[in-house]
C-alpha cells in the first residue's frame, strides 16, 4: 500500500503539479481546495503527510493547522508550501506543529524528497473512516 499525501491549495494548477510529482514518487495523492474541505476530507480518510498552502480563502493554512491539531490525536506531519517566507508566519506554523516550509516556486523533485524524508518511518494509514480521529 502506498503512503497517502494530501495537497491543500486553492490553485488547481499547483494541486495538479504537486499530485503529478508525488504520484511519480510512488505516493497516493488527494486534494483539497482549502482548509475547510481538507478538515472534512480528513475526517473520513487519514493521510500520512500534508502539503498545505498558507494564503487560501475560507480557512487559511495556519487556521487549518490549528484546526487539525484540535482533532488529530496522532499528528499528521504538515509541510507548508507557499509564496510566503515571513519569519513570523514560519514561527506560527512551527508553534502549530508544522514540520516543514517550502517557498514557491518549487522543484517537483524537492517535494518527493521532502515527502520521503518526512514519511520515512510511517506505516501507511488505515483507510477506515474517522481514522484521523484518534485519542492521544
Amino acid at each position, binding site marked *: 500500500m502506498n503512503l497517502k499525501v494530501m495537497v491543500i491549495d486553492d490553485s488547481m494548477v499547483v494541486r495538479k503539479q504537486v499530485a503529478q510529482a508525488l504520484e511519480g514518487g510512488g505516493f497516493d495523492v488527494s486534494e483539497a481546495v482549502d482548509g475547510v474541505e481538507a478538515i472534512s476530507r480528513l475526517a473520513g480518510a487519514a493521510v500520512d503527510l500534508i502539503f498545505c498552502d498558507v494564503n487560501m480563502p475560507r480557512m487559511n493554512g495556519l487556521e487549518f493547522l490549528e484546526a487539525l491539531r484540535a482533532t488529530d490525536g496522532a499528528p499528521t506531519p504538515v509541510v507548508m508550501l507557499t509564496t510566503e517566507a515571513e519569519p513570523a508566519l514560519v514561527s506560527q506554523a512551527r508553534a502549530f506543529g508544522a*514540520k*516543514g*516550509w517550502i517557498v514557491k516556486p518549487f522543484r517537483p523533485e524537492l517535494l518527493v524528497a521532502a515527502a520521503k524524508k518526512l514519511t520515512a518511518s510511517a506505516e501507511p494509514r488505515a483507510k477506515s473512516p474517522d481514522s484521523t480521529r484518534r485519542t492521544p
Partner: protein
Amino acid sequence: MTIQTTDLVANATSSASNRAQLAAMLRDTGLDLLGSLGVPVQDDAPFDPGQAVWSDPVSLVGFAGNSLAGTMIVSAPWPLMARTSPIADHRPEGLADWSRELSNMMLGGLKIALLRRGLELQMGLPASVVSSDMRIKTSSRDPIGHRFGCGGQDLFAALDWMLVPGVVIPAATLAKEELALDHELLLL
C-alpha cells in the same frame, strides 16, 4: 493590521529612490521567477502601466502593510502562460488559475525583497480577469511597470503602490539565508 488609508499617499511625496528601489525589486523578482520556471528572459524594460492596454488573462493581488500598500498586476499572452505552466492542461480556466498563481508568486518575491529591508506586508488573494482591451486605473501617480521579453512573448508586471509619507525603503539588511526563501525544505 492597523493600516490607515489616510496615512498613505499615492506616492505623490515619495522619493525617487523609493520608486527606484521598488522598480529594481520588481525587475529582480520577475527575472528570478521566470528563470526558475525555465523561461529565460531575453530582454526587459520598464513600461508605463498608466498608459497600458491590458489583454489576455490579467491577474491582480492586493497587499497592505504599515508602510506600503497596493496591488500587483501580472499579465501575459495565453501561449506564454502555457509555456510557463507546470501542468499539461492548457484550457483557459487552468491558464487563468496559473495566471493568478504567477501574480501570487510575483508578489511573494516582492514581499521577500521588502522583508529583507525590514518592511512587512500582508498579501491578499489573487483574482483574474480575461480581457482584450482593458485599462487599469491606478491609485499611484507613478505606478511601476516592467516588461519581461521571453522569446517573442512578453510578461507584464505592474505595481500600483502607496507609501506612508516619510518612509524610506532602506537597502537590504537581512540576508536571504535568514528567511525561508532558498526554495528548499526548511525543517521546523
